[in-house]
């Protein structure tokens, strides 16, 4: 079955092409094509995962795609190991259910077929990243995703704000991508090849110097910062909510943003070899999770709450990876995909029903939309880390790893103890804040009385079915970490052996559960009766203003970077292009015309002109022949 793994990215790619070309004329707008492609991929992915669980060996196949010279070549190959299998299942599952959901959600949209085409292309891109055995191919898939993200966020581009959000997303991730590309070049140069396996071996055997490793790893991480929305490149994620909700669920919750985490996990031996980069990841993750959770507390738009929540949870994953928790990070990715996608899709149902994104216009929906309410509740509690839902297990494992690295002195990670301690502390605080904003979100949306104008009603089966399935996943996914044959075993590689079954630190479990329940309790107490007259934090103007302005980061970027580029660099480049480059082209034309005007006189029609030329030529020739040649 592993041999068929290549079909999984290729089928959506084919679906994309088909949908682009003839999708419009197919019945149902061609949605079936996209869904079928992903469904087949889903089945294959599940089969592969079961094979991995059963103890199958990793499968690697590669062929030379294009030789570049100097001993380099661009390979085309795939690695089907446990990590890839887990990600493949995540991506295809979420993609499949999002597409089913979209049948109903996007009904009536004028770009319905194109939407499915974009989703298919995106799925293919992410799967290429997951399966790639070399960094260049991964970059290829990475960029496909970046472009699709742009197209999908800008799906409703008639509204300028949406178009701007799409550009913001694209450009911000592009900044990170520059670092990523530089990192690829550093490693490819050092290891004399693009293959991941080769690079890892080069690092482990010490062929690649430690400075190179640190430099390359830091640069590669830049790409992860951009794509996974870490500080300081996280600003695009909340604005990306301008896209349709299925897009937010697929891309900005479960898959594309997870690509950065996947990158670090895939190249983990490289990162492990560089303690300073791990420290840097840890610090950034701590900052990110904290500010994102704080910002989630003050949002009115339900999708923005979820967006900031995603940023915060991604930081959790990065934090886990920074303290040596390879399997913890991937496990959280796995569970987060389920409950975050669920939350987004459910939010989409709610938004559809009340025709508004703002929680200030919601309320009391528990009675009107019971199924949505229950599934949303499951997802929200999983997010808050309440046992026995999925989020509890993964969050707990992360905090355990951070504790072990920071306080218990397990010391196997290359991270410094201080950083691990910081990660642990911020992790706990963020868990509290997470529970707090989750409680706020739940009560404002479903509790108290309805504050809006419309007539909310439950959604249809096409939208509810994915919700239910994902809710089941969000509830049960946590159990894959238990026992001997756990997810840690699945994703182990020869470079990263599993550490044995998870030992449950009871004290920690109690602490985290307490933190989570406290947060929920406070949230309930504050928002049980619905939206207060003034938000509580508004009472502290400084805090309120800082949070409203998103810690002034957007302003900083706008003034500092965008102004400089758009204001100065862009016009300068434009001038150069118009005057110099076009000038050369125009000049060539003008020059030819002037030359022609001069040469015209050769053909004046006047005999004496011709005669003069004749005699002149004779004299000249005579001189040349005798003087130059004759001598």
């Amino acid at each position: 079955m592993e041999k068929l793994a290549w079909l999984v990215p290729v089928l959506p790619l084919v679906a994309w092409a088909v949908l682009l070309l003839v999708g419009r004329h197919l019945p149902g707008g061609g949605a079936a094509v996209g869904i079928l492609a992903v469904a087949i991929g889903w089945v294959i992915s599940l089969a592969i995962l079961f094979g991995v669980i059963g103890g199958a060996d990793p499968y690697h196949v590669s062929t030379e795609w294009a030789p570049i010279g100097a001993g380099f070549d661009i390979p085309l190959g795939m690695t089907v190991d446990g990590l890839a299998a887990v990600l493949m299942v995540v991506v295809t599952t979420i993609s499949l259910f999002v597409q089913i959901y979209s049948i109903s959600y996007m009904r009536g949209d004028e770009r319905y077929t194109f939407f499915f085409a974009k989703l298919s292309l995106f799925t293919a891109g992410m799967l290429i990243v997951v399966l790639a055995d070399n960094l260049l191919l991964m970059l290829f898939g990475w960029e496909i995703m970046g472009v699709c993200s742009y197209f999908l966020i800008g799906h409703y581009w008639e509204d300028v704000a949406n178009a701007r959000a799409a550009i913001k997303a694209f450009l911000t991730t592009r900044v990170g991508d520059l670092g990523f590309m530089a990192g690829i070049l550093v490693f490819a140069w050092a290891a004399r090849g693009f293959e991941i396996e080769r690079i890892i071996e080069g690092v482990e055997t010490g062929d690649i110097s430690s400075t190179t490793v640190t430099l390359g790893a830091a640069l590669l991480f830049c790409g992860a910062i951009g794509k996974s929305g870490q500080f300081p490149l996280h600003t695009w994620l909340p604005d990306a909510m301008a896209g349709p909700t299925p897009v937010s669920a697929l891309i900005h919750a479960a898959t594309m943003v997870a690509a950065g985490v996947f990158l670090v996990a895939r190249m983990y031996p490289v990162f492990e070899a560089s303690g300073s980069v791990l420290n840097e990841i840890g610090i950034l993750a701590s900052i990110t999770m904290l500010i994102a959770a704080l910002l989630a507390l003050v949002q009115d738009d339900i999708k923005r709450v979820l967006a900031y929540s995603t940023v915060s949870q991604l930081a959790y994953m990065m934090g886990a990876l920074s303290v040596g928790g390879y399997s913890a990070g991937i496990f959280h990715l796995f569970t987060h995909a389920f409950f975050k996608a669920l939350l987004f899709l459910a939010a989409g149902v709610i938004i559809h029903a009340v025709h508004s994104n703002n929680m200030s216009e919601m309320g009391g929906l528990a009675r009107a939309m019971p199924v949505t309410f229950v599934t949303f509740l499951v997802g929200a509690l999983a997010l808050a880390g309440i046992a026995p839902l999925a989020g509890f297990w993964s969050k707990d494992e992360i905090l355990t790893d951070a504790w072990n690295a920071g306080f218990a002195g397990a010391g196997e990670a290359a991270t410094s103890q201080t950083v691990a301690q910081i990660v642990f502390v911020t992790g706990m605080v963020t868990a509290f804040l997470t529970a707090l904003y989750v409680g706020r979100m739940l009560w404002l949306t479903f509790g108290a009385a309805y504050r809006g104008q419309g007539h909310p009603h439950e959604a249809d089966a096409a939208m509810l079915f994915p919700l239910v399935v994902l809710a089941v996943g969000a509830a049960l996914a946590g159990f894959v970490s238990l026992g001997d044959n756990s997810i840690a075993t699945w994703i182990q590689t020869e470079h990263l052996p599993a550490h044995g079954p998870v030992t449950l630190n009871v004290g920690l479990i109690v602490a985290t559960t307490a933190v989570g329940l406290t947060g929920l309790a406070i949230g309930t107490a504050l928002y049980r009766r619905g939206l207060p007259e003034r938000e509580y934090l508004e009472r502290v103007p400084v805090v309120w203003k800082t949070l409203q302005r998103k810690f002034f980061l957007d302003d900083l970027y706008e003034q500092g970077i965008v102004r400089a580029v758009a204001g100065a660099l862009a016009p300068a480049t434009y001038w150069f292009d118009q005057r110099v480059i076009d000038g050369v082209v125009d000049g060539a034309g003008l020059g030819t015309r002037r030359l022609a005007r001069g040469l015209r006189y050769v053909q004046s029609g006047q005999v004496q002109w011709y005669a003069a030329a004749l005699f002149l030529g004779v004299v000249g020739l005579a001189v040349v022949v005798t003087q130059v040649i004759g001598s």
Partner: protein
Amino acid sequence: MPLMYPLVFAAFLFSAGVYGVLARRNAVMVLMSIELMLNAVNVNLIAFNAYLRDQLVSGQVFALFVIAVAAAEVGIGLAIVLLIFRNRETVNIDEVDLLRW
């Protein structure tokens, strides 16, 4: 006599003819200048014939041919000039530039 004498004389006449062809506007005057050039050529031929003391007297024979051809050429040339004059009321050759761009 030194060979150079007739040769320089011929060269001078030829150059004068060249000047005339290029500087004159009237077509008939251009024809006259061409005749000058042809005569210069003839002088050259005769001079070399005398210098080389050719058995076949080729230089003089050639000179005769040149004279004959010159006569034919003047006839045709003047016919053309007449035709142009009839059609355009002018014999200024710088006004006859139909083959221009």
